[in-house]
């Protein structure tokens, strides 16, 4: 195997210093001359018809420059599933109805924030309140209030997957169990609340700086909703303080900023507050998961019948994708000869759920992995043994969906068992202390094109210069996950350059090559990485030709790129510096710069993803059986993310995942009263603190993914899933209480133990 000089090394994040010293520019840091400040008026009721809106008093306030309502904007819906316009169910501002507390009704732009906020309070809206539905059961009741006329049953979309013969499978099973699991909504809780600044120039072109994961999608949807041409919209992603799936759609403030900038001729900024984010923001789908599984008595899986209701809230958002993916995550870890999935996405009068780190996997895997642990218990088989028996291996098929290429799942299970001291601990821990396991598999980007892009999924342009530097341009979006660093690493390694030789321009839709579908589904390293490799390969071809010509090399010679030089393999003196080689090519091209485009679009890779990651995690907990409080003592993780491009970055993703998984498992939840979110600050929306983080140990399984850049696949998202089922099983092992409805609160533990 090739020895790398940059790949596989702990390369610090290239944006780390700027962020640590406060110099990194985020959307809210941007201030333009004569900029106005925007504020949204949101619905105070969960479901109502808008009878009238009176903005006169607000408009008369000194300093107010623009007020818009649904009546002022084009009546054009938007949504990320452009291929199916029927799923596009949102307007930037409510037209006739509001569907959740927080639904955007009007927007104000004023000379300062206080004025905008004061003006919003002066807008009078007359509502005719309608009955609301706040959970799936209520939404599906006969004669339930209809939230969207286009979906009279309140089911907005369903997806089905089926293979094998499910009935025959259950008939052939020795052991069948059926369980219902419920999982709750949690917040992305990115550190940077959403913010954007829009500017309209004299040609009426819009530039929008926005905290987004998907500049290209925002560009396209902003163009369609404003009735403008795509190329007249420029979206620039500044530094982004996290997204986790919550910033991957066009959002009302982005539209309103652009619209009002055009109306007023002045830049308009919106910055959301944390309270707005928690009370009205996107969240992870709550689900009701009914799962029936059949096993042979030796633990071999025979059949699974999975039905999921996704509580989608008031609009589709990314719900359709979550509905599709949940069915795939239900059968990605193990071989199910017979499988059936029905997923139904249900409207309710709550803030819309959407994509969130794991995109359906944390929910479905909590159910699937918990059920696997329950089956292991009843069949008298060790939880790791039963998994080893059924584990997906390289070459296995998800029938009609995908073939698993690289797969280190079995190795992950064995490594997790070894480093955690599993076998000993399962036998010999005292009451109140327990260990449990949870596993995951995840996609490395989606192959589906519901956005209906006409461009490659990812693209890169590399410009090489005679001074030995290169300029990488890509629309890929670093939102804090570190993709800028990794893409630079890939390019530097390929061209034999140093990190500091590479200038990067990223995520500017007017300046970087079309296109990139954005940061979601753990797609960036694989897809943008491949696009960078593709462009780099073309640059290398040219430079290799130049060196070959200059030194009159036999055509059979390999040309190497290392240490800033380009030379004949085995004959380092037959070569020149990278910059000299570029100059040579440029001379030969009569001044034409050395520039190449590369791209990646997955083709012939089935229906889900070009590559799959796997992993296993063991949790050890102590449960205070008098108070029900759970202390996670330690987490052990073994996972397969293909070639580890940057160990430090992978470790960061792992720790972040454990942190998020811990909150999902134990403490984070929205306390709702009907459609109203009661805990809208971090005092009462309980994200684990640094002090709550358990220590951890981890192993990366060495695999090579043929479809990934340099063998890599995803490491940022799948890892968030195993934590909750691992902790739940550890709590069961410690106390005998089995949690089937997240989160595992102290109250539930005490109730489960019959003490409350």
């Amino acid at each position, binding site marked *: 195997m090739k020895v790398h000089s940059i790949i596989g090394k702990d390369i610090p994040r290239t944006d780390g210093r700027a962020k640590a010293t406060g110099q990194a520019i985020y959307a809210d840091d941007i201030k333009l001359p004569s900029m106005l400040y925007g504020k949204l008026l949101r619905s105070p009721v969960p479901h109502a018809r808008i009878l009238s809106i009176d903005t006169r008093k607000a408009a008369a306030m000194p300093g107010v420059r623009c007020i818009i309502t649904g009546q002022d904007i084009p009546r054009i819906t938007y949504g990320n599933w452009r291929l199916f316009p029927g799923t596009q169910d949102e307007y930037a501002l409510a037209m006739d109805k509001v569907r959740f507390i927080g639904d955007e009704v009007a927007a104000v732009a004023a000379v300062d924030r206080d004025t905008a906020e004061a003006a919003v309070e002066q807008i009078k809206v007359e509502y005719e309140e309608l009955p609301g539905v706040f959970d799936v059961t209520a939404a599906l009741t006969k004669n339930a209030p209809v939230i969207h006329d286009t979906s009279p049953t309140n089911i907005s979309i369903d997806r089905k997957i089926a293979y094998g013969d499910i009935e025959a499978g259950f008939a052939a099973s020795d052991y069948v169990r059926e369980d219902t699991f419920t999982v709750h909504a949690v917040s992305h809780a990115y550190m940077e609340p959403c913010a954007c600044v829009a500017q309209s120039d004299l040609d009426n072109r819009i530039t929008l700086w926005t905290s987004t994961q998907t500049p290209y999608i925002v560009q396209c949807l902003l163009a369609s909703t404003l009735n403008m041409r795509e190329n007249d919209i420029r979206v620039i992603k500044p530094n982004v303080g996290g997204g986790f799936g919550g910033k991957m759609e066009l959002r009302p403030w982005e539209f309103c900023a652009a619209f009002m900038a055009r109306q007023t001729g002045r830049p308009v900024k919106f910055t959301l507050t944390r309270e707005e984010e928690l009370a009205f923001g996107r969240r992870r789908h709550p689900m009701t998961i009914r799962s029936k599984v059949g096993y042979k008595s030796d633990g071999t899986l025979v059949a699974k019948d999975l039905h999921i209701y996704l509580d989608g809230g008031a609009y589709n958002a990314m719900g359709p994708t979550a509905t599709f993916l949940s069915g795939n995550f239900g059968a990605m870890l193990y071989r199910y000869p017979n499988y059936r999935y029905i997923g139904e996405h249900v409207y309710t009068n709550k803030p819309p759920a959407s994509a969130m780190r794991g995109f359906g996997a944390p929910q479905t895997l909590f159910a699937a992995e918990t059920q696997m642990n329950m089956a292991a218990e009843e069949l008298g088989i060790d939880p790791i043994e039963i998994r080893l028996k059924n584990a997906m291996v390289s070459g296995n098929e998800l029938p009609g969906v995908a073939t698993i290429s690289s797969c280190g799942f079995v190795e992950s299970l064995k490594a997790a068992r070894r480093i955690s001291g599993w076998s000993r601990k399962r036998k010999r821990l005292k009451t109140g202390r327990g260990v449990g396991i949870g596993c995951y598999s995840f996609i490395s980007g989606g192959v589906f094109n519901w956005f209906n892009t006409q461009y490659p999924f990812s693209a890169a342009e590399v410009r090489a210069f005679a001074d030995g530097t290169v300029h990488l341009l890509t629309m890929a979006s670093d939102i804090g996950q570190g993709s800028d660093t990794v893409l630079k690493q890939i390019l530097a390694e390929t061209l034999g350059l140093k990190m500091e030789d590479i200038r990067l321009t990223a995520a500017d839709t007017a300046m970087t090559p079309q296109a990139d579908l954005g940061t979601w589904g753990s797609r960036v390293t694989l897809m943008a990485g491949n696009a960078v490799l593709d462009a780099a390969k073309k640059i290398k071809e040219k430079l290799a030709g130049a060196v070959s010509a200059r030194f009159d090399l036999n055509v059979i010679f390999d040309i190497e790129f290392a240490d800033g030089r380009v030379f004949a393999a085995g004959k380092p003196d037959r070569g020149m510096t990278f910059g000299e080689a570029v100059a040579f090519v440029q001379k030969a091209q009569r001044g034409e710069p050395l520039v190449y485009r590369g791209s990646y679009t997955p083709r012939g890779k089935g229906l889900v993803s070009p590559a799959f990651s796997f992993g296993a995690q063991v949790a050890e907990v102590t449960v205070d059986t008098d108070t029900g*409080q759970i202390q996670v003592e330690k987490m052990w993780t073994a996972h397969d993310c293909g070639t580890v491009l940057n160990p430090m970055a992978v470790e960061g993703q792992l720790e972040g995942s454990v942190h998020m998984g811990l909150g999902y498992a134990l403490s984070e939840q929205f306390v709702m009263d009907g459609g109203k979110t009661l805990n809208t600050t971090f005092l009462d929306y309980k994200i684990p603190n640094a002090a709550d983080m358990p220590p951890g140990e981890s192993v990366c399984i060495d695999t090579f993914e043929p479809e990934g850049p340099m063998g890599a696949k995803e490491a940022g998202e799948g890892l968030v899933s195993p934590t909750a089922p691992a902790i739940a099983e550890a709590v069961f092992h410690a106390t005998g209480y089995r949690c089937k409805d997240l989160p595992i609160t*102290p109250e539930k533990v005490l109730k489960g133990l019959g003490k409350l």
Partner: protein
Amino acid sequence: MPVPQFDYIAPKRVDEAVAALVEGGKETRVMAGGTDLLVKIRHRMLFPKRIVSLKQIEGLDAITFDKNTGLTIGATALLADVAAHRSIRRYYPTVADAAQSTANVQVRNMGTVVGNLCNASPSADNAPTLMAMGATVNITGPTGSHRMALDQFFQGPGITALKTGEIVTSICVPLPPAGSGTAYYSLSQRGKLDCSAVGVGTMVTLKGNRCMDVRLIVGACAPVPMRTLGAEKMLIGKKMTDTLIRKTAQAASKETSPITDVRASAPYRWKIVAVLTIRALADARKMALGKR
């Protein structure tokens, strides 16, 4: 939401502060660290027209200890300073622990013990222990100065016995009697850094194993941090056995009137009052017997 406009006054002397309060009337608020007040203003729960800061008043942040008169904590003494103070750690370890378990590092470096009390949150971490130890508050107002027992100070959520123009200048905690032990236990859903869903503070005074005196205060389970007098009576004069502690804890739980809110349900709080009372009494007993 817009931050309401207000005047900010930072007098150098207590009498000036009192005058500024009297002049400002009802829409004036006193500020020490500001860690509760400014958040409430920002969230538009309060709309003061004037804020009188105590931070410029010299000596008001003093912490003094004297073996005869006990401990005095000034109005602007920081939670962090109380938590770290050598004499407090030695003679009033539970007072230090309670200060240390309040909020997080940033709040402890800004916020004050007296401010935590004047905020009058039923869940205030510092109240139960200080009440259990018989603390008194020193109050200065337009008509002069007076003292008040801390357990008379709290009137309801966010409401104290302070009258217009009055300021708490310090809190005094008598030296714990010989044979006494103290403990404070609190609990929340998140773990280490959090607002308490239940808190229990106690001081017991033993002669041998016999309970001569006890004060038991429960936080976050009533409109104010509350003394559970019935439970206390069960212990006084009795041998403090494990069985009696368990019975007392049940009684203490019954005396409280918790509500269900975003932090915990009422039934859970009732249960946890009993659990934490057992732990607090057992710990205090251990300390009184010199075993902790």
